[in-house]
């Protein structure tokens, strides 16, 4: 049983990084980007391919996944960041759909629906962290803590303040001489690089990868975590990722729902939480209520 909890906690840690990276671009900078899973997926596929075909190890793959996702995001950002609001959302959602189609059909690279098997388990410093779920959890906890510390520094910095200003009113930010395009582009690139790292962690942890990583349900899960945690709220999103991925996603199983109904029951739990949040805590359940 304890193995199961560590495994669940490890997955929750990965989703904490993805959600927090999305919180940087969507929560802090206000970029309503519905294609964030692209960067998570690219990081995962980059790690899977680099590991199984070229023999790159876990640690190298973390760096390379960040680099590849960040580079793709910079091109993606230059093309889409002139768009605003709904237009940006539609363009990025379209890009996510295209990514899934590419992953499904580019058989030479991704093996399509068959997926990529035989990805090495996460390891670092030789064999120390190989083996059971506890060493994996400890390794992932260390990586997540480092990345979250980096993100927390960003959130607290004057740059984080600038992103919040851009989210609230772009014109006012321009009126005091800020380069809002550069700030938004960097927000997207950094958030993509972090999502790429999380993707690599995911691929190595699951040791198998298929195109479902780009699915719409993953995008909705990300938005759910950030909305429940509160847009731009750092610790709220950490708590929200653990609550949703670590607890609520498994709630139907704890309540002994039949296996065939687990997916539907999970969606009902998510929808109920989202509706309740919209009614009583529209700024997120971990934010103070506005007087």
């Amino acid at each position, binding site marked *: 049983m304890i193995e199961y909890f560590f495994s669940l906690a490890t997955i929750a840690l990965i989703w904490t990084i993805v959600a927090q990276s999305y919180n940087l671009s969507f929560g802090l900078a206000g970029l309503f980007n519905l294609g964030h899973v692209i960067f998570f997926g690219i990081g995962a596929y980059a790690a899977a391919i680099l590991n199984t075909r070229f023999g790159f190890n876990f640690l190298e793959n973390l760096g390379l996944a960040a680099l590849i996702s960040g580079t793709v995001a910079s091109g993606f950002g230059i093309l889409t960041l002139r768009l605003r609001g709904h237009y940006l959302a539609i363009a990025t959602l379209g890009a996510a759909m295209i990514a899934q189609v590419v992953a499904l059909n580019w058989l030479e690279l991704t093996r399509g629906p068959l997926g990529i098997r035989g990805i090495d388990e996460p390891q670092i410093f030789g064999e120390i962290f190989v083996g059971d779920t506890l060493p994996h959890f400890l390794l992932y906890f260390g990586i997540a803590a480092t990345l979250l510390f980096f993100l927390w*520094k*960003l959130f*607290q*910095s*004057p*740059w*984080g*303040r*600038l992103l*919040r*200003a851009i989210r*609230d*009113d772009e*014109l*006012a*930010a*321009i*009126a*005091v*001489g*800020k*380069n*809002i395009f550069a*700030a938004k582009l*960097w927000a997207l690139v*950094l958030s993509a690089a972090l999502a790429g790292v999380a993707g690599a962690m995911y691929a190595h942890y699951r040791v198998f990868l298929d195109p479902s990583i780009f699915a719409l349900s993953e995008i909705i899960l990300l938005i759910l975590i950030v909305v429940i945690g509160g847009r731009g709220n750092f610790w709220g999103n950490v708590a929200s990722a653990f609550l949703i991925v670590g607890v609520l996603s498994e709630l139907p199983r704890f309540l002994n729902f039949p296996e065939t109904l687990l997916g539907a029951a999970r969606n009902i739990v998510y929808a109920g939480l989202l509706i309740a949040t919209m009614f009583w805590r529209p700024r997120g359940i971990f934010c103070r209520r506005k007087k």
Partner: protein
Amino acid sequence: MSDFLKISRLRKKFDGVHAVENLNFEVRKNSITGLIGPNGAGKTTVFNLITRFLKSDSGEIFFRGETLKNLPPRKIVDLGIARTFQQIRLWKNLTVRENLLLACSKKYDRWWDCFRRRNEADAERKIDEILEKFGITNLKKMHASDLSYGQSKLVELARTILTDAEILLLDEPAAGINPTLLKTIEKIIFDLKKSGKTLLVIEHNMPFLMKISDEIVAIDGGKFLCQGAPAVVQKNPKLLAAYLGDAREILKSEKC
């Protein structure tokens, strides 16, 4: 230097309607110039064109002899032109201090600066000084969303001043505020002039504007009407016609 800010043959059209048409005027250095005209005359459009929030169809704007053509709005601020808005635009989810800090410097505006040791003491000192001068020190830690209309006006003005621009474009600074606050704003504007700043002010409160301005530029339908000292411009028949229109003819005929 007469052509500190020079507007030359400026044109802007929206869907076939001329918002600004062949407009020419100049603003002298270290002066307060009022920009007046009836509603829809194109005053705010002129501000948007100067600050490059809008691109002109033709014509040029020169600041200290240099054209502003092809510059992005943020570069206009770097050159020394800053503005306020007709509708107050504060960052509502930030505190007054954070609103002002953002205008103070660009020193830590890059993400990698988060690893540098920060020293915002200079900026904090400037903020404390301006808040004290404006008599709103008590608002420093408040969120902008919790401010009253008048307080928001003062904070927006403070934010614009903290950009350290040489010329400030103020869009209706006296609109919707009480007489006490009006006096405060009047004093702030005079102090700004004393400190060497140049001001271009849009305002519908004529007694206020006539009192503070060294010069008035009047426009109507995007076209230049007249420019001169307040006392002279007030009597200009073109301006009276623009503001009173047919009413003036009716009043004349009633007198007869």
